[in-house]
């Protein structure tokens, strides 16, 4: 079970409260987690990564285990603590509000 924490504006868009818990089959990477997230919540497509290029949107960041994973390759395995559900995978709006 993967635990995902969304920023407030995406929790409202997806109509979810608190953490999202996802089952991910196969290797646990940022790509597989985001695929599973968008599969469960189609309204999030395009709001975290571009729908055509699949690149992370510029003002979205990915954190886990107190590390910034935003610049990691999408298929790099996530830390074991995330894969096991001990630690959450955080999707964060960058400090660029207005």
């Amino acid at each position, binding site marked *: 079970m993967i635990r995902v924490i969304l920023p407030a504006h995406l929790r409202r868009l997806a109509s979810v409260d608190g953490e999202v818990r996802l089952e991910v089959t196969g290797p646990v990477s940022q790509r597989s987690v985001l695929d599973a997230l968008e599969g469960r919540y189609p309204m999030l497509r395009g709001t975290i990564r571009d729908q055509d290029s699949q690149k992370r949107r510029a003002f979205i960041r990915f954190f886990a285990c107190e590390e910034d994973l935003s610049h990691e390759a999408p298929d790099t395995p996530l830390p074991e603590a995330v894969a096991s559900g001990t630690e959450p995978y955080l999707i964060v709006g960058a400090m*660029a509000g207005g």
Partner: protein
Amino acid sequence: MSGVRVLVGTRKGAFVLTADGKRDQWKVSGPHFSGWEIYHLKGSPADPDRIYASQCSGWSGQVIQRSDDGGATFQPVGNQFSYDGTPGTHQWYDGTPHPWEFERVWHLEPSLDDPDTVYAGVEDAGLFKSADGGKSWQELPGLRGHGSGSSWQPGAGGMCLHTIILDPATPSRMYAAISAAGAFRSDDEGKTWRPVNRGLHSEGIPDEDAEVGHCVHRIAMHPSRPEVLYMQKHWDVMRTDDAGENWREISGNLPTDFGFPIDVHAHEPETIYVVPITSDSEHFPPDGRLRVYRSRTGGDEWEPLTSGLPQQNCYVNVYRDAMAVDSLDDCGIYFGTTGGQVYASADAGDNWAPIVRDLPAVLSVEVQTLP
């Protein structure tokens, strides 16, 4: 009793303002989509319960929302806007080629007769269509691809397609306007397009009479006379009587002919409204006095409308999509400001009162006249 529903898009959410036909007591609902920029909401002429909304943010890009119950609730629909084929380039501010990149939807124009069909004007300038209630979007590539697209440049607000007008008398005819490219017309349901800018003069471009490159801010039409269009350009208020083939200036005695919105009285095709703004660098009313100007002669002769509007220390702007008219017997006029006020007049502009005073900056105002 008949009534109105005013749809207000702001920098931080959407608001729905409703009143009966007297338009003196208002109910305010919102914010919907709190925290997101709502560039535009518009109801379907064929089904007033169907409303489309353009929602976006710097963090998470574009979302399209749809209501099937008159704005009480909304559901996200499709938000994939992919340009047709290889997008190519347009000119950047410095004149260099810049790849076409989707940024946001500025304007949603529902079909006149099918609630599931809606057009979207986007930045970077392009025109998209959905025939399934907003679930999927396809570009009408004939506009970007008609030949001049590679020379289009953005205005200060981005290279946006902000105006879409559907001709009620000739369903195959539609218009689009782009900052800063100009006005375009299609006579085959959006398949092919050509510029319709003859008569426009813009000092900010090397060839003042160029076929494209004009910063058109807004175009308005009265449905009973679709061959007549009124335009607020960057500078100059313009008019055409032949569906855009030729334009002439009608700025007349306006205190300044810079501005953004322009609209037409619901029952008087020669009665039009603008909000003069001081200049391209001073986006506020002249002398700190918020005045709507009305012409009852189709332009050239204008009168200021001030009753109920602030006449001192007012330095707000009114954006291009932030004015609308209802179609009640006594035509109502509405506009919103960057200061968060939405003003209404229930007597064609003679007297004004704020519906709300303290919303986030208003990006768009539309009104639905309800049975």
